[in-house]
C-alpha cells in the first residue's frame, strides 16, 4: 500500500540520475539489429515494469535506447531489449 503511493507520486524519469530512455521505431530497430548483427536475445535486457520506461508504452521485444552521460566519452548510447518480467 505504502509502496504503491510512493511509486505513483515519484516519476523516476525526472530524477537526475536516470538517463534518457527512448524507444526505437520499427525502422530504427531493424537498422540497429543489422548494424550490430545480433538477434534480440543477444542484447542486454530491461523489464517492462522498469520505472524508467513506464512512460514509453513499450512491449516485450521493443528496443530502448539509453543515452548516458559518461566521464570518458561525454555521452554514450546503450541499448536494451524489453522483456516480460
Amino acid at each position, binding site marked *: 500500500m505504502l509502496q504503491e503511493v510512493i511509486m505513483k507520486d515519484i516519476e523516476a524519469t525526472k530524477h537526475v540520475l536516470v538517463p534518457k530512455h527512448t524507444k526505437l521505431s520499427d525502422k530504427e530497430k531493424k537498422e540497429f539489429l543489422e548494424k550490430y548483427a545480433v538477434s534480440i536475445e543477444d542484447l542486454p535486457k530491461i523489464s517492462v515494469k522498469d520505472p524508467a520506461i513506464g512512460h514509453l508504452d513499450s512491449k516485450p521485444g521493443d528496443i530502448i535506447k539509453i543515452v548516458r552521460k559518461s566521464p570518458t*566519452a561525454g555521452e554514450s*548510447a546503450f541499448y536494451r531489449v524489453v522483456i516480460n518480467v
Partner: protein
Amino acid sequence: MEEEKPVNEEEKKEAVAEKKQERIEPQEEYVYKQVKSIVFSVLSPKLIKKMASAKIVTPELYDREGYPVDGGLMDIRLGVIDPGLRCKTCGSKLKECIGHFGYIELARPIIHVNFVPVILSLLRSTCRDCGRILVPKNKNDKLIDDLNKVEEESGLEERRKKIKTIISGMNTINKCPHCKARQQKITLDKPTTFVENERRISPIDVRSRLEKIPDDDLALFGLNPASVRPEWMVLTVMPIPPVTMRPSITLESGERSEDDLTHKLGDIVRINQRLFENINAGAPEIIIEDLWDLLQYHITTFFDNSLPQLPPARHRSGQPLKTISERIKSKDGRIRHNLAGKRTNFSARTVISPDPMLELNEVGVPREIAMKMTVPERVTSWNTEFLKKFIQNGAEIYPGANYIVRPDGKKKKITDETKETALEELQPGYIVERHLMDGDVAIFNRQPSLHRMSMMCHRVKVLPGRTLRLNSAVCNPYNADFDGDEMNLHIPQTEEARAEAEILMEVQTQLISPRYGLSVIGCVQDAISGNYTLTKDMSVSRQEAVELLSAVGVTNFTRLPKRDSISGKEVFSVLIPEDFSFKDEHAVISDGKLMEGVMDRNLLGEGSGLLLRTIHKKYGKDFTIDFLGKVFRLGIEVLFRTGFSTGISDTDLPEAGKLDIKRVLDEAYEEVTKLIEMYENNKLDTFPGKTLRETLELRILEVLNKARNKTGETVADRANQKSHTMIMAKSGARGNLLNLAQMAACVGQQAMRGKRIENGFSNRTLSAFKKGDLSPEARGFIRDGFKSGLTPAEFFFGSMTGRDSLMDTALRTPKSGYLYRRLANAMQDLRSEYDGTVRDASKKIVQFAYGEDGIDVSKSENGKINVKRIIGSVIG
C-alpha cells in the same frame, strides 16, 4: 543418472564411421565434435558381462613362478602393467593398452551403496505386491505433464526438486490404488539394509520388487527404462576394474606391493567363493547370512570406504584403504588434484633478489637451476659441432647437456659412461637437451597472477648464487619485493612457444599498462634519488661525466659538451634522443636537452607522468626499455659516487625551529582547554545535526590537526634542505614530509574509527588520567616526535592504532582478493569484437562500445587521446 536424452541415431552412425576411418589411419587424426547430449545410465548385468574380457574366479594373484593366474585378479587379459609383455585381449604393449574390465558372478545379490537413496524411494513409492507406482493411472499422466512443464519453464534442477516432493508425498499412501494391497512402512537401516515392519528385506527380495516395477511407471522417477532398470542397482555381477587402474608396485626388495583396490577385490572374490561353496554344500542359513553380510560389507567399502556408519576397511598397518570414491572425491582426489590442478615440468621456484646490473628484460638464474632445466635443440648439419661440446661436458659441467633424444623418441641420459656412444651416434635429427644458457627464453611469474603483467617473458642470465634475480624496476608489475618473495620460472620447450612468449609476453611489450595507459615500469627508490640529485644542481668534471655514462653503458660521448665542468642536466641529456622535445608542468626538454625541471618520481616513476609514455610512443618499446635501464643505472651510479645515507641527524632542527613548534603546540593546547571550558559551561555553539559533545570533539580534532600541520610546515622550512631524508621525500623516492615531521616534531593525533581514542576504562582512556579528562594528552594526542621519544601513555596510544590498522589490513586483504577473483572469473571471456562491441563467450552484447568510449587504454595516454599532439606531429 537422472538426466537422459535420446542419442541422435545419426550421431551414433557418424561416430562409428569416424572410428572406422581412424582405424585405417592411426596417425594423429583428430576428430572435432561438439557434445550434443550425454546419457547417464546404470550398467546392466548383461552389459557388465559383455564389456568384460575375463571372468574372475580366484582370489590368487600370481602362481609360484610369479606369473599372473588365469581367472585371478591380475589376469593378463585385464591389461598389461609390466614392460615387455603384450596384452592378451588387445595385443598392445604397456602404455598403449588402456586395460580391460573383468567381472565376477556374485553368489547372492548385493546392494550398491551409492544407489541406496534411489532404491529406498523406489521401494517406498511402489506397491509391495504388484510393483505399480502408488499413483492412480489418470493422475500419473497429469504428474508427468506437470513435470515436463516445470522443466520447460525453469529447467532440470526444478524438475528434480518436483520429483522429490512427489516421491516424499507417496511415502504416506498406505493402500495401492491398483491392487488395493496394504502398504508397509519401509525404513533404511544405514548403510545398506532395508527394513519393513521391523523385518529385514533381503537383497533378493529388494531386487525382485524392483523387477516388478513396470517400465511405464519409471518416467515419474526420472529414470529412462531404455538405459536404467531399477533392479540393476542391486548387483548380481560386479565389474572388475582393469589392472591398469590398480597397478602393483615392485619394491626394492623385489617384493610386490598391490594396490588398495586389488586388496579389496581380493577380499570380495575370496568371500564370494566361500559363499558359493557354503551354499552348494547346503550350510546352515546363519552361516550363509553371515558370509552374505560380509560380502555386502566388502563390496560397500570397495565403492566407498568413508561411510559414517561403517568401520573403514584398513591395511594391516591400520591406515584406511583408498577405494573408488576416495580416489575421486575431495582435494586430493582425481578431480581437484589431477584435473583441475595440474603440475608442470621445466619450471623452477626460489626466493628472488634484486640486481640492478641486469637488463630489465633479463632474469638471473642460479647455475644450479640452469644445470637442471634444459632446452631441447635439434641437431642439424650446421650445429652438430656446437651441440657436441655440450655432450662432451656432460651433465655435471656447465654448459652441458642432460639428455639426447633419438629420432624415434627414445630418450637417453648423458652420463660419463654413455657420453662416448652418444657423441658417436649423434647426427642430424637428434635432439640435445642442453643446459639453460644466457639469452634463452623464460617466462617469469609471481602469484597472485592478477594481471597479464604478472607473467612476463625474460631472457635468461646464468649467475652464481642461489636466488632468482630481477631488475628492481620490474618489481612493480609483479608487485614483488625482496622480503622473502618467491617467483616461478618456466622454460618454453618448443619453437612455437618461444616465439609466442617473445612476441606477446616479453617485458618491453608489457610496458604500457592496459589499465591506465602509462608505463608500469619506471625508476624506483635510489634510482629516483640518484637522478634527482644529478639533475637538481650537481656538476661534475668531464672525466667524471664520462665515467658515469660509461658505467651505464653509453659509448658515444660526442653529445657531452666540450667543457671541463658539466652540469648534471647535461649528463642526463646524453641519454635522451637528439630529436626529442617534451613539455609539461614538471620539465622541459627541447631537442634532446633537459632545459628545465628535475628528474623525480613525477617524471620517471612507475605509472606517473607522460614522459615515459611519450618516449615509448615516439621511439618504440625496445628503445624505451633500454632508456629506462640506462636511466635507472645512471641514478644508482650517481649515488655510488656521491654517497647516500640517512641518519637521525637528518631530523635535527635549529633551536628557533624547536621553539616555533613548542609555541604552536602550546597555543593549540590552550585553545583546546578553552574549548573544553566552554563545553563545560555550555557556551559552545553546536554544529547542526551534532550533539554538544560531538561538536567539541570535532572542534578539538580540527585545532589539533591544524597544529600538527603547522609543525609539519615548520619542519619542512627549518630542517636541513640538503639532508638525504629531505631529498628522498622531495624526489618521491621514499617517505614524505609528514614522515619527517613525525620524526622531527610531533606524531599527532591517534585516531580510531575517525575519533580520538575513547574510553578503555570508565570515563578515561588509561588509569593514568583523571576521570572525564578531555585534554589532548589524555585522548591520544602524541605531542612528541619519534626522535625526542614518546611518553608511556603516548606510546600506548600509538600501539593501539598500530594494532588496529594491522588487524584491518590482515582482514581486508583476503576479502578484497576474493572480490577481485570473482570479478576476474565473471569477466574472463569478454572480448571486444571487430564491430567495437564487447561480447561474452556466447556473443551476447555487454557493452556497445568498449568502456563507453571505445578507447584502447593501452594505446592511449592516460586514458585519453591527445588529438592536439597527434595533429601537431603530423603537420610538424
